């Protein structure tokens, strides 16, 4: 029992749950709640994206596109056409999943930089459609969104949203951890190390890659829908190329192939710009420098690097306490 609790899976989930429950004691006003909710929504996207980048080893520089489709799909269906928000969100999610499935197969045949280019292109095309079709999307000005409601009940207020996003993040992490431990997850890791090798042992690499691409797109789309309803407004900024880069940076910063790393990365890089506002004119330079610096000095990401450090210390302590060495 204790052993199971200490396993990274159960232990990590418990630690995350504890963090989510305890965090409100530190959140003294609604501004902090607002940032915590943004962290949670970004973390959901990153947990999905990490499955694709960290485990399956496929790059995507266009996930802000899926986030944006989720946000705008919900916004347009619920606000312009008066759909119930839940139905709008489910329809949008299904549509995004279908799109990811359709483009996934030809795109994921590509490798390395060619894949980076194709996903980048996909994201930019989505961005341009959203900024140009202003009859539906409001163009660069954005679109206001009705609050999320189920039947008569309307979800309002930062505190309520905090618990909803927190619960969903926990659910997303649980799903991701289960997937990683399942045969499908092992297949993904196998094709990360060698695609040919994986195919030789009977893994349908193309199918596995498309599956994880669709899953990561769905995570991003749901987070996008929720973000739209929560903030009551959508703008093309969150669909832009730069947001895709931010998402990838969160995943790599936290540590590739570490689900909790993705959460840590989302937390750090979502709060960082808030802290950097003190640098005023230098904000952009400092942000760029932080991006470069962490990737140069911690290329494996924060969480795996820390884990390795702890491991080394433990080994060091063990060898010191052993009189024979």
């Amino acid at each position: 029992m204790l052993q199971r609790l200490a396993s990274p899976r159960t232990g990590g989930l418990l630690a995350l749950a504890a963090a989510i429950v305890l965090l409100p004691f530190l959140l003294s006003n609604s501004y902090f709640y607002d940032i915590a909710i943004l962290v949670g929504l970004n973390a959901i996207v990153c947990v999905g994206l990490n499955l694709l980048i960290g485990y399956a080893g496929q790059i995507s520089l266009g996930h802000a596109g899926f986030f944006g489709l989720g946000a705008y799909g919900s916004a347009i269906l619920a606000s312009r056409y008066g759909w119930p928000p839940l139905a709008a969100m489910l329809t949008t999610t299904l549509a995004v999943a279908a799109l990811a499935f359709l483009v996934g197969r030809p795109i994921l045949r590509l490798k390395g930089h060619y894949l980076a280019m194709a996903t980048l292109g996909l994201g930019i095309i989505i961005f341009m459609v959203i900024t140009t079709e202003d009859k539906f999307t409001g163009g660069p000005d954005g679109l206001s969104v009705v609050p999320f409601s189920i039947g008569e009940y309307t979800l309002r207020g930062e505190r309520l949203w905090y618990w909803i996003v927190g619960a969903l993040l926990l659910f997303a992490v649980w799903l991701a951890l289960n997937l990683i431990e399942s045969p499908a997850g092992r297949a993904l890791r196998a094709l990360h190390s060698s695609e040919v090798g994986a195919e030789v042992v009977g893994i349908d690499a193309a199918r596995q890659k498309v599956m994880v691409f669709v899953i990561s797109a769905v995570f991003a789309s749901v987070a996008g829908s929720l973000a739209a309803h929560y903030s009551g407004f959508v703008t093309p900024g969150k669909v832009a190329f730069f947001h895709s880069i931010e998402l990838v940076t969160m995943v790599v910063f936290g540590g590739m192939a570490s689900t909790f790393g993705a959460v840590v990365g989302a937390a750090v890089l979502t709060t960082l710009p808030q802290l950097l506002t003190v640098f005023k004119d230098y904000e952009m330079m400092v942000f760029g420098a932080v991006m470069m610096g962490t990737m140069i000095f911690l290329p494996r990401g924060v969480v795996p690097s820390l884990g390795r450090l702890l491991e080394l210390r433990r080994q060091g302590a063990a060898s010191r306490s052993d009189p024979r060495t």
Partner: protein
Amino acid sequence: MSAQFMQYLLTGLTVGAIYALLALGFSIIFNASHVINFAQGEFVMIGGMAAVSLTAAGLPYLLAVPLAIAAAALVGLALEKFAVEPARGASVVTLIIITIGASIFLRGLAMLVWDKNLHPLKPFTGDTPIAIGGATILPQSLWVLGVTLAIVLALSWFFGRTLLGKAMLATSHNRLAAELVGINVRMVLFLSFGLSAALGAIAGILIAPITLTSYDVGVMLGLKGFAAAILGGLGSGMGAVVGGLVLGIAETMSAGYLSSAYKDAIAFVIILAVLFFMPSGLFGKRGGERV
């Protein structure tokens, strides 16, 4: 050939030549290091903005242009030394983030050194349009085409005839083998960033009189240059030139005949369509993955 078609073709060739210069920069760095340098567009910006400042300070073009190119080349060398070299052996995604971080840093720096405004650069030789077959072309466009042609010829001489060029080519084929025959691979890597930055700066100076320049001009140009390099096939010099010209012409034609709202999206639609059928671009290396 209608005059309108001719006009779009000339405009497309001019834009395409700029994309080709950028794509060549991407390919040179990729060949030497297998890094995609997402800061390539910033060299265009540095070249253009530096030329604007230097000419505004009263320097003649003959002095301002080489100085602006040198400034960009120095930034390129510094980028290699302080950001790419320390991260050797990192994964593709990590290197992408490093160069994007560098591009954000450089843009932030440019915003401080200069400002957020659009700046014009005086055309090299007047701005009286020249009539060709019912269409007109700006003298500056002829400069763009002429200089690009000269650079392509110079590069093919450099890579085909000089020892340094051949060393760079050898490194791109097989790094270890190149090292074994005594090529200083690290130096090749270092120089490739300087050369690419210089090419980017030349593109930036050439295009500034036509499209104006500003601190963020490199974002879209960089992405288009990358698209051109991928379209032609990464690492292929000929592919970079063809990819650039094809993108430039396709973009202008579709903006003219179809919809100008989606002008910037065309490049990416084309690239997706080509990659669906030719996963390594038009002239990229075919063949399987090494196991």
